[in-house]
């Protein structure tokens, strides 16, 4: 058994919260740069240029990329040969979030009850997903999720006899509805299969993978390419003011499902979709 002190986890979570909010992901930076080269619309080009400038300022001056520093989702993959010592895992994660948001001067956007709406003042609680895997390591991924894009995310329970075509048209509807509101160009995380809740959690998880990494499954790779192509035909463009660049990347995750269903969830991510990971 390898012992890992939960204080170490707190420290890593705190650092990852700042890192994710300040440093634009490399894959996304590269995708914006690539889009800028292809884009012909004058205004779209100028906005994409400003987005790159924004990333430079944020990194150089330790500023948050966006004032909506999100509700934090934390994914912990724990090796089954790890023994956690020194306290409570969930408490250590939340105290890491609290510390990171204080140190990084990040916005506290969490309210205690969806109805009573009193700010907790610490940006906690976070939403924690744990997964037990093989080995003696622990991997933490932090996703601070902004709500401009979260609000536009959707789930549809399709019929089992529907297929790629219907999935694509559902996703096009979601993106059209998001339109200029959720900070295009978008990153789309898509979850297929499982149950009502599983599809949604897959969609969020799909936002973590780099958008320049090829999907290992050929049928999903094909669908990702088709969706990207169709979405970019919508002409929404950066800031919704037109152009070829409506979507920077599509990631799909799938899971076996029931004979009677085909759940499809789309988690809309903005052009600064954030995540940061570390292995302990």
């Amino acid at each position, binding site marked *: 058994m390898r012992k890992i002190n939960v204080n170490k986890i707190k420290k890593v979570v705190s650092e990852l919260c700042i890192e994710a909010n300040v440093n634009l992901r490399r894959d996304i930076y590269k995708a914006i740069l690539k889009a800028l080269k292809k884009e012909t619309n004058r205004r779209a080009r100028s906005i994409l240029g400003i987005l790159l400038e924004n990333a430079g300022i944020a990194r150089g001056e330790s500023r948050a990329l966006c004032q909506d520093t999100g509700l934090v989702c934390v994914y912990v993959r724990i090796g089954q040969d790890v023994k956690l010592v020194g306290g409570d895992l969930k408490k250590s994660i939340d105290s890491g979030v609290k510390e990171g948001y204080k140190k990084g001067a*990040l916005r506290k956007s969490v309210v205690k009850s969806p109805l009573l709406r009193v700010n907790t003042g610490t940006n906690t609680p976070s939403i924690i997903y744990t997964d037990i895997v093989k080995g003696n390591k622990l991997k933490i991924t932090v996703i601070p999720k902004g709500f401009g894009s979260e609000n536009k995310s959707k789930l549809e329970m399709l019929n089992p006899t529907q297929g790629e075509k219907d999935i694509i048209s559902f996703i096009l509807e979601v993106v059209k509805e998001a339109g200029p*509101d959720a900070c295009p160009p978008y990153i789309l995380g898509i979850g297929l299969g499982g149950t009502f809740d599983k599809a949604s959690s897959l969609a969020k998880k799909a936002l973590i993978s780099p958008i320049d990494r090829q999907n290992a499954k050929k049928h999903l790779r094909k669908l990702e390419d088709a969706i990207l192509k169709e979405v970019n035909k919508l002409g929404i463009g950066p*800031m919704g003011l037109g152009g070829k660049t409506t979507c920077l990347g599509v990631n799909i995750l799938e899971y076996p499902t029931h004979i009677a269903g085909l759940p499809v969830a789309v988690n809309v991510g903005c052009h600064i979709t954030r995540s940061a990971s570390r292995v302990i």
Partner: protein
Amino acid sequence: MKKIKTPLMKSVRTKLRCGQEVLLSGTIYTARDEAHKKLTELIRRKKKLPFDLKDAVIYYSGPTPMRRNGLFGSCGPTTSSRMDKFTPILLKESLGAMIGKGRRSNRVRDLIKREKAVYLLAIGGAGAYLAKRIKSSSVLAFKKLGPEAIYKLEVKDFPLVVGIDSSGRSVYK
């Protein structure tokens, strides 16, 4: 690029055209969901507002906390449509302009036309870039709301695009 100043007078607003890029300087006030709820309640109860709405500019933004220099690290726009249900009452009180991102309801668009106001767009997700155009900031009202409080900002050459002009034309069709 056209430069405009606050207070944003009707004579200036009516010259702005949808799609036009402008640089705004002067005083603007942040207000998002909770602050809108409170402002409209004050108006309904005929109470004094924390700032004069006439020809004023409201910025839909909830900034990150102030840094050591008293300025925000990041301060970009939030989604405007969430404010649509509160906007008509503010426009009827002579609000001059709003800064946000995304679409507005038809009712808001009609009232912008009737009141000769204007809706301006800032680049969403570029909060670090936009914060650098803010020269000073102070909390003005509802401090308890934290990021949702009303902040008074002095901006210099704040880059914007006219989203809905005073004749009701929208850049989003």
